């Protein structure tokens, strides 16, 4: 067993966004006293423990808000969630510390130095100040970490074996232990300033004078008796909320706050081996129902992508009144499927990039601007295709010829495929199950609305067109009210372009232009 303890000396300040780096003096208060204050306030001489009135006397412009232990706990739990990426057993040491059993992770991560590097980058990204210690027992690690310097540089103390524990612990002050304050005062009163002093006393005498707790803690710290811990169990759902320091009207000002939550979203998903498919962003207002924005993803596997798409959606939102808080909730996620590696190098499968492109385009341009195409079983050209979700799993069968598809060969008389006449005068209306024929040429461009070309003998587009081939009769749709009977021709202009024109078989036989062979 090897335990790592992380102590966050500034956690109370860090749990309020934008307070640590704020140039204005800020303080958190509890019971009329300063609980913690930022660097700007320290420069004015304010310290934790000062009365609020004394602090205000030192810095009249001091801003303060109430310290909320619940908020600290939420942040600590978020950190525990992150720490679960390093170890299977993470213990919350209230109020401001975490203990991780890393003995089992050493081999996986390739040694202690690699784990320490991960801790440094992980906490650096989250902008937390921390002290770190590694020891064979959790309590010893915690005490070592607590005794660390409180400067900007994180303190790091490592003790790897129990034999080395005693001399190291002996130098620590008694204040690092979890003792009632009156016990601490009495200990210091008799001159027991360090743990070493306590250890030199007979155990029974210590227990009689200062209670069982002290000698128990010492024995646990030295590993003489077991110290079982209850690990942190992460919640099954991800839902996190942050209160803003001051109400803001502009959504763009909330985005940095959102960005701080998103690594946790990714981390939550990664730990569960899932990818996020639906996220709800809640913008809280005072005196108004919160603004909700739900965003769907095909699978947000990358932080940058998630961030970009959410920003695009949020920047378009209109809020009725100033925003006081922001929440992120994962509504849906799917189990991550690893990308299928191609057998041959050099042809990577680009499915995920395609989905990401789709989401990016839709986030900026609107949901109905990016479309895919699909085929429909209908002879009428305007109904023989449809918009589809791009890249949707729906298979679109290419029925180039009936001879090739295995399924069609196997079911010659299944009634689904009605083979049209030999020259393709497609009359398939009778069966109601029209099958698209593809042996006739089709134009690559279709006009959104057909264009009238007059009712002369020949279609007329500036000048009369020459008919190159045809007719191909398409007669269909009597059952759905848009009955058509048309003779299609390919017509050519003098200077080359070819058009797909048809003549109505009924009525006065007008010509229409429907497509262009491009």
């Amino acid at each position, binding site marked *: 067993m090897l335990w790592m303890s992380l102590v966050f000396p500034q956690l109370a300040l860090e749990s309020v966004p934008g307070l640590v780096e704020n140039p204005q003096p800020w303080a958190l208060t509890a019971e009329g006293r300063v609980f913690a204050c930022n660097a700007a306030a320290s420069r004015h001489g304010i310290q934790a423990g000062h009365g609020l009135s004394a602090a205000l006397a030192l810095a009249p412009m001091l801003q303060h808000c109430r310290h909320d232990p619940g908020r600290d706990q939420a942040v600590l739990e978020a950190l525990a969630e992150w720490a679960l990426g390093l170890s299977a057993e993470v213990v919350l040491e209230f109020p401001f510390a975490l203990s991780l059993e890393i003995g089992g992770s050493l081999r996986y991560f390739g040694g202690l130095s690699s784990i320490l590097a991960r801790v440094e980058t992980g906490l650096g990204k989250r902008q937390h100040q921390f002290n770190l210690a590694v020891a064979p027992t959790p309590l010893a690690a915690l005490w070592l970490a607590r005794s660390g310097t409180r400067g900007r540089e994180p303190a790091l103390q490592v003790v790897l074996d129990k034999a080395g524990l005693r001399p190291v612990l002996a130098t620590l002050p008694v204040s690092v232990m979890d003792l009632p304050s009156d016990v601490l005062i009495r200990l210091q009163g008799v001159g027991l300033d360090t743990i070493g002093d306590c250890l030199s006393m007979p155990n029974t005498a210590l227990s009689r004078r200062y209670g069982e707790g002290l000698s128990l803690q010492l024995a646990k710290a030295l590993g003489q008796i077991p110290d079982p811990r209850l690990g942190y169990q992460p919640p099954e759902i991800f839902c996190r909320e942050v209160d803003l320091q001051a109400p803001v009207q502009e959504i763009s000002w909330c985005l940095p706050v959102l960005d701080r939550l998103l690594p946790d979203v990714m981390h939550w998903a990664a730990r569960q081996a899932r990818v996020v498919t639906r996220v709800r962003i809640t913008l809280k207002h005072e005196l108004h129902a919160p603004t909700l924005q739900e965003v769907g993803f095909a699978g947000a596997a990358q932080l940058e992508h998630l961030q970009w798409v959410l920003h695009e959606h949020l920047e378009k939102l209109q809020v009725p009144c100033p925003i006081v808080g922001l929440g992120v909730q994962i509504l849906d996620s799917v189990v991550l499927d690893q990308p299928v590696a191609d057998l041959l190098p050099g042809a990577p499968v680009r499915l995920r990039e395609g989905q990401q*492109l789709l989401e990016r385009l839709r986030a900026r341009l609107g949901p109905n601007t990016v479309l895919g195409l699909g085929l429909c079983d209908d002879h009428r050209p305007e109904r023989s295709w449809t918009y589809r979700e791009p890249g949707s799993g729906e298979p679109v069968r290419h029925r*180039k010829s009936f001879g090739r598809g295995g399924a069609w060969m196997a079911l010659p008389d299944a009634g689904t495929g009605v083979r049209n006449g030999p020259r393709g005068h497609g009359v398939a209306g009778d069966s109601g199950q029209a099958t698209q024929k593809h042996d006739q040429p089709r134009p690559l461009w279709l006009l959104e609305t057909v264009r009238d070309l007059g009712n002369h003998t020949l279609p007329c587009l500036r000048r009369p067109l020459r008919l190159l081939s045809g007719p191909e009769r398409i007669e269909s749709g009597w059952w759905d009210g848009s009955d058509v009977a048309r003779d299609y021709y390919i017509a050519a202009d003098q200077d080359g372009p070819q058009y797909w024109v048809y003549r109505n078989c009924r009525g006065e036989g007008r010509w229409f232009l429907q497509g262009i062979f491009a």
Partner: protein
Amino acid sequence: MDLFKDLQDLLRHPEIWRGDALAQQISTISTGFPALDAELPGGGWARAGLNELQVPREGAGELSMLLPALAQVSREHRWVVCVAPPYLPYAPALGQAGIDLSRYMLVKVQSLESRLWAIEQALRSGACGAVLFWSQGLDDRHLRRLQLAAVEGDAMGFCFDHSPRTAERSSPIPLRLALQPCQGAKLQIDILKRRGGPTPVRLELALSRGNPVLSTPLPPSRGRVGRIPAWSGAARRPDHTILPADSVLGNLTTQGWQPEVNPVLQRSAARA
């Protein structure tokens, strides 16, 4: 033999740049037309970069000409993206040409800004094999940016240009072709600009409405310019005329005319 060795030494001089060296390095995708492949650097469309297709008006066969390459791209599970097309792409015809429709994406945008943005995103994403777009409103600055995006995202960009007299304008696009429809479903192609080879070159492809069947390079005697022998000094420009840019729909007018006898129509009438 000494002479040959001397020549080899000379060619190794760092200040001598050989055009064909560049052309062979690029990764390409076949156009589907051997005659055209033979003329393009690397033997096909460059897999990364823009190509300009100057067409006097829609319907010259500019899309049919791209179909083999687009089909190949979609078979490789890469996307074919069409940004703000002038008409509806007709799905059955695309399917007929072998394009996997589940890899086809249509982006309908109006404003120039969104169009540019969408084109750039598509080119840069790395997911797209080919991006089709139309040049109206785009200037050199935009095209240069898109060219960089295409190289970065390993995508082919096809820029259709219907504006008049673009041939004389300079452009950052490395491959520029001018297309002109001619009688008999043929497409006349002038290579106005290419890497590592002399220009202009004229050739003719036979397209069969929607489906290319065969390609026939124009015999040198018939062509006005034909294939200019490599490195023959100053290359002449083809004096082809480009019609004013009129969209088909823009100038569609029905006019009175004298009826004429049409053999196809007569046949159909007789059958009826």
